[in-house]
């Protein structure tokens, strides 16, 4: 845990080198079709200010809003009331370094779904395991 000037917890940040050109990765992370394959069904559009929903199946739809679009390098959206998600893409000579940032961790963020942490975690865990399983089937076929 590090000190920050803001009243927030540290972001989750993950980086992955993808063996695919940046334009292909951008298409996968900045179109509704692409996002629905690896993340969740949605009605995303790459337009700043666009309101859309991520569909977590039986766990409900999260209202989201696009806050930043900078093709093919950067995309941000608000996830629910508190969280934000940023995708960063860097061209690495035909490959792409992809970074995911999931931030906005605060008390309110933890209870985004209006339930105690433990309850949300248990319920969403089941849901997400299902989603990820479905994805593996789809892309692994």
């Amino acid at each position, binding site marked *: 845990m590090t*000190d920050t000037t803001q009243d927030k*917890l540290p972001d*989750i940040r993950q980086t992955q080198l993808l063996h695919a050109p940046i334009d292909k990765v951008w298409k996968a992370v900045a179109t509704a079709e692409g996002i629905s394959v690896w993340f969740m069904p949605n009605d995303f559009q790459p337009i700043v200010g666009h309101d859309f929903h991520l569909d977590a199946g039986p766990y409900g739809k999260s209202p989201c809003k696009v806050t930043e679009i900078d093709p093919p390098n950067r995309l941000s959206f608000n996830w629910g009331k508190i969280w934000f998600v940023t995708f960063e893409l860097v061209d690495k000579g035909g490959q792409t370094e992809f970074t995911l940032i999931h931030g906005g961790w605060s008390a309110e963020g933890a209870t985004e779904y209006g339930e105690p*942490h433990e309850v949300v975690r248990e319920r969403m865990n089941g849901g997400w395991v299902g989603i990820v399983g479905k*994805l593996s089937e789809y892309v692994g076929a």
Partner: protein
Amino acid sequence: MSEPNAASAERKHDVFQAISDPTRRSVLRLLGDRELPLNAISSHFPMTRPAVSKHLRILAEAGLVKERKVGRETRYRLDADPLRELKSWLAFYERFWENKLDALKRYVETDD
């Protein structure tokens, strides 16, 4: 430096709330390896003792700080158990994103 306001002091505090404040994180670090009375804790912060006391109460309500009386003095110490809960909560999301990024990798690395 932020102080807890009246509204937040009335709520039951959870771990996220408790450690979202830089002062309270400093208090926890201070109590990491020793038990201290309020005076000793206050001397580390540019704020009044009642203000530090409020922070301690929020930490105590979240279960992060335990207190006990020694004579006329109340001493405070860290209880790290709730932090382990928090860690598993964040670890859950770490794992969630690892799965998603793996799915993205498989997706974009598949030939059209």
